[in-house]
């Protein structure tokens, strides 16, 4: 008569398993994350009704710091490397995306009605503790919950925001229950128009392009609070602004994007588009910015990037994790290393966005620096 006991044990175990399974299922509840996928965000599916980045554009500031709602996508992309007085390093990423769900916005009696959604990613790299914390939020640009305006400049998603507080001075606030970022940013270089006077073509189809400008250096000062310990930090940030309706072509799977701030005052932005067959797309391009803000465009074949090491994410993707970057025409040669391997954001679109350091030479002179690298399409 032993078997009933086994039956009871089996039954209990099964019940426990079921409960655990349900509990796990509940835990995995996050925001309705699949609001967009890479395809949604940047693919070239039906774009009728939207404005397209299909020609030269007269940029106007501060107007263009605000939103361009007739385009499908837009972002305000801040990244930066910070360090505390005791030498402790942090990397941060704070970005607000605007995504149009429909081209037209109808007149509606309710102020909640909107054809747009705002999304924000906020990530902090803490190599001292080898941790990488990221958060994603959604809200709608209605009844003041989220939005972007140019005068005075402000872009916000609920209580995460970047606000112009005085001429040439912006404040950034982002907080979660376990971390808080309060930074003051001051541009030290003028706005740089990327691509052809701000038109950044992603492939040969006209309109598969974005309007793209950067502020490559903003001196940054403020505090990083993590687990209730506040660190006073200083450093440099980079702002990328881009809006488009469709960018990637059907055969393009992702991109590797580099923004590097050199110790000699130069800044370098370079992205390479990757194709399904593994090749690098000729539409890859970049810009070298000298200490005064003068720019020089770089084409795909001006730069060579060699992957020296990869990192296997436990979530599945294998990402490049060390590069040798050379610009022969400028006699530039450097090795770029992430300040920690795992800087993967597991959000609605999984990607890697991380702080990097580099060392190398330019014209035979030693250079160092830091920056940010974004790797998409490696899932």
């Amino acid at each position, binding site marked *: 008569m032993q078997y009933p006991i086994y039956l009871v044990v089996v039954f209990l175990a099964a019940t426990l398993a079921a409960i655990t399974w349900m509990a796990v299922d509940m835990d995995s509840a996050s925001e309705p994350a699949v609001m967009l996928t890479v395809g949604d965000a940047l693919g070239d599916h039906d774009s009728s009704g939207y404005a397209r980045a299909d020609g030269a554009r007269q940029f106007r500031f501060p107007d263009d710091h605000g939103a361009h709602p007739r385009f499908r996508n837009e972002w305000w992309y801040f990244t930066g490397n910070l360090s505390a007085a005791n030498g402790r390093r942090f990397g941060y990423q704070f970005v607000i995306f605007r995504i149009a769900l429909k081209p037209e916005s109808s007149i509606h009696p309710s102020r*909640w009605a909107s054809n747009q959604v705002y999304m924000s990613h906020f990530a902090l790299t803490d190599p001292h503790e080898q941790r990488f914390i990221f958060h994603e939020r959604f809200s709608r640009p209605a009844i003041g919950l989220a939005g972007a305006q140019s005068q005075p400049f402000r872009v916000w998603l609920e209580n995460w925001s970047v606000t112009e507080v005085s001429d040439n001075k912006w404040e950034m606030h982002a907080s979660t229950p376990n971390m808080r970022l309060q930074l003051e940013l001051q541009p030290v270089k003028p706005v740089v128009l990327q691509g052809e006077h701000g038109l950044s073509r992603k492939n040969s189809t006209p309109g598969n392009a974005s309007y793209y400008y950067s502020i490559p250096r903003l001196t940054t000062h403020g505090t990083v609070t993590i687990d209730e310990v506040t660190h006073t930090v200083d450093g440099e940030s980079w702002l990328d602004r881009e809006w488009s309706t469709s960018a990637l072509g059907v055969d393009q799977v992702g991109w590797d994007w580099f923004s590097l701030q050199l110790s000699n005052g130069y800044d370098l932005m370079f992205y390479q588009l990757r194709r399904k067959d593994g090749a690098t797309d000729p539409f890859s391009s970049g810009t070298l910015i000298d200490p005064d803000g003068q720019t020089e465009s770089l084409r795909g074949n001006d730069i060579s990037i060699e992957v020296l090491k990869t990192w296997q994410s436990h979530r599945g993707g294998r990402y490049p994790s060390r590069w040798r970057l050379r610009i022969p025409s400028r006699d530039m040669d450097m090795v770029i290393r992430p300040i920690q391997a795992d800087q993967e954001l597991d959000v609605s679109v999984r990607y890697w966005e991380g702080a990097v350091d580099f060392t190398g030479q330019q014209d035979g002179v030693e250079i160092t620096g830091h920056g940010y690298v974004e790797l998409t399409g490696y899932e």
Partner: protein
Amino acid sequence: MSSLSRASLRYLWRHPWQLVLAVLGIALGVAVVVSVDLTNESVRRAFDLSVQAVAGEASHQIIGGPSGLDETLYTQLRVELGMRDSAPLIDIYGKARASTLHVVGIDPLAEIPFRGRFVKQQDAAVRTLLSTPGTVLMDASTARRLDLSVDDRFKITVGGHAHEIQLVGLFGSHDSNPAALDSLVITDIATVQAISNQPGRLSRIDLKLRNDNGTAAVLKRIHSILQPGARVVDAESRSHALLQMTRAFRTNLTAMSLLALVVGMFLIYNTVTFAVLQRRGLIASLRLLGVTRGQVFRLILGETLLLGLIGSVLGLLIGFTLAQGLVHLVTRTVNDHYFVLTVGELVIMPWPLLKGLALGVVATLLAALLPAVEAARTEPHAALQRSGIEVRARSLVPRLAMTGLALTLGALVLLVLPSRSLLLGFAVLFLMILGLTLMSPLVVSWLTHAVLPLAGRLFGIQTRLALGGVVASLSRTGVAIAALMLAVATTVGVGVMVDSFRSTVEQWLSSTLRADLYVSAPGLSTIRPEMALDMAVLERVREVPGVAAISTGSQIMVESDGRLIELFALGLGHSILPRYPLKAGDPGQVWPAFLANRGVLISEPLAWHQRLTIGDLIPIHTDTGIRAFPVLGIYYDYSSEQGEVLMQRSLYEQHFEDHAVSALGLYLSPDADLQRVIELVRDATLDTQYLMVRSNRTVRETSLAIFDRTFAVTNVLRLLAVIVAFIGILSAFMALQLERVRELGVLRATGFTPGQVTGMVTAQTGFMGFTAGLLAIPTGLVLAEILIEVINRRSFGWSMKTVVSADVFLQALALALVAAILAGLYPGWRMAHTPTARALRQE
């Protein structure tokens, strides 16, 4: 199987009618209790589920005054305070394809922590909800019921305005009870604000606060940004307050079902007693053969247990069927009077079923205990003669009556206790019933002795014998009469109560409804004009020729002292004076003070529930915060049992940001033609919204129709009690007469004709029925008084004038007589046609 059980079973088998009636009596008693229990539980669960489905995981809610919250509060909460665990919600009711739908507007982007099921795995649909106003989700079963599939467009009517909306997705209901999601329509806030014409407003904001030390600080921060009139409430207590509204109603239903069980128990007792008494010969033989007392006792109990089980299980089945009908009646009443409950499904729960089963078996066993003891105690030789029992029974009668008197006095003592407890009220009710019932055998005995000589002289020997038989076998006739009396008294009591209530309401309606015509937008609840009228309506109606004056009314729910009550804002046109009948207050002082906005009037139930009297202050949550208003007077009102506050429109608008009017009362000039004006009003408002234009008479009739609907449940239960009693009486009287086969055989042998025997049997049962009916009248009146003065008052706070019509008494007498005579027919016929020799042989 032992030979004992076989003997017992064979006996039962040979008396199939008795067996069937006994089982049926138990079954019906159990069925009534189970059906009411199931219904109550289903309604409560339906309510819980529908509240939960919409409340989700919220720990707290921010709620506002009657017009809800300003939506900017949500922006402040999110942008200034960074409260991420917050979700806005606006809910309304609409009608589509003849169904009432609960339309809930949410922000899909804020939903996951609260009601994740609506948006999970719904990305495409959520995108559509967000970007395309007028799109909705519902669950698959609701869509099926409305005959809708994804992408279909359909019309929904809210407050007299029709809107076209489109179904764009179905949310999963696999993880929960589908009943909870029935009739639920999920859409974006923008859509609900548009179709309900409430831009800028939210019904509430749900919060999820962690239960730790930080909560107080968070709440403090929230309080610092709240607009006047808005406040944070515990999510659970809020839904509790809503459910509390129906408590009195449900308690009364339960009491009715218990009453049915009490009647049922009497009958079970009766049945079992007979089963034992009839077998006293068999038992005596068994005892002589050496069967012990313990064996006899166990035999009787075992047999009863079996009967009880069969009857109870059958009762569960009948109860379940019955409940399916009852649940609709009750849901309708709840919708008429309390809140819109879209769930009408019967939910089978184990608890009411178990309770019913236990109740049936225990009641049967209890009823069998006394006869079983009696049977076991029987000395073999004594058992062979009945007279011993009867002698003992007769000596018991005065003692029973004394006990009954004591119980009645006890009930009276409880009655004068200064208490408001409903439970105590029911204790009074049941003690009184039990007391009066226990006294009935003595009264029967007196009555019989009183009429016996007279009857003998008037109708001859048969009648004398018949009546004498009643007293001679009082052990059984007493119980049978008591049971019939109780059943009839119950119908008399409930009948008088309902009649009194109805006539009070009728009178109240005619003194309260003063306008000639009433205009309102169709609300969801039948009697509450809750939907706002378009601004244009008032202006257009004012222009209609024949309309001399207009009063406006607006009914909203407000909170006072933690209770949800109603507030009626009354706007009086020129030359109209309010004429609400007052329970307390001098009309000459009350109305001038009311018109001068010096305070408010409260309804009688409100005064009762909140123990308020003239001069007290009543606190009300207004849009400007909690305000205390002086009570100027108390008026009679039967429209709301939670209570109502009457406030003049101008005072209302000082405290509520609500300019909506939900009903108009039109006073016509003396020469105006009612029908003509109705048509003119309809024409003038054709392009505004769909309106109900009803004459004074129609409103009165509709109100009474709702009244009757409310008491439909009561009438069903009353009828059931009578059926239970009837079946019991039938079995008891039949057994009684069948037992007298030998006695009647002797009469036949001495020369009585079959006709004379039948006449005798009929005379006896008729007399018993008449006695029961006669006793039922005073008992029923006492019952009615307790129902009116104690139960109703303590439940609802209503006072009513007792109205007794002769009809009720005639009905009671007729009922008792018919039941009794019918029960005597078959035994009479059988005895008359049994050959005398066989009758004398008996067993």
